């Protein structure tokens, strides 16, 4: 039973990874790509690692998979935030059809 839940989680994880990477290729500018890819791939990889942990039972492998999942969950949004800040400070333009830029008002203050 717990194996089946693990396999389902792994399938969900791979699907989210694929959708995130399609977003990385298809979206028009850096900030869109960043939010699509980072959120989808973080959830997908965490689901994959939790699926591996559930399927392998009580073993060192499952403990390492859980540690790895927690680490990814903490660091991946942090890295995305740093890249977005760096890209904005480095002068990368928004897509021309973007409607709002709150961070510009914040920077001007």
């Amino acid at each position, binding site marked *: 039973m717990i194996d089946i839940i693990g396999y389902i989680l792994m399938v969900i994880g791979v699907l989210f990874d694929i959708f995130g990477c399609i977003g990385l290729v298809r979206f028009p500018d850096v900030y869109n790509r960043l939010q699509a890819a980072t959120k989808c791939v973080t959830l997908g990889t965490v689901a994959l690692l939790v699926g591996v942990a559930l399927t392998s039972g009580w073993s060192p492998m499952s403990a390492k998979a859980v540690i790895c999942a927690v680490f990814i969950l903490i660091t991946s949004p942090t890295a995305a935030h740093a*890249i977005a800040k760096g890209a904005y400070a480095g002068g990368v333009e928004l897509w021309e059809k973007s409607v709002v830029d709150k961070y510009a008002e914040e920077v001007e203050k």
Partner: protein
Amino acid sequence: METFALLIYIGLLACCFLCLYRIGRGPSAPDRTVAIDILGTVIVGFCAVLGLVTGKDFYLNVALAWALLSFIGTIALAKFLEGRSFDD
């Protein structure tokens, strides 16, 4: 189990190739940095599945080390993109 693992490998390899397309295509440095970060995260998942299928748990050590190095590299690249030196 073999067929299932093969399907998961194919899905993750497709992700890797999409990331490589974005790394090669650009057009700016932040695009490439995002793609490198995502590629690292996908490879962590790949290593975990590889460890499960082969039953050898050192693949999970590889995954942990890869996650750490990918995070540090991405932070360093983001600092570089900001256009400041590493000291301040």
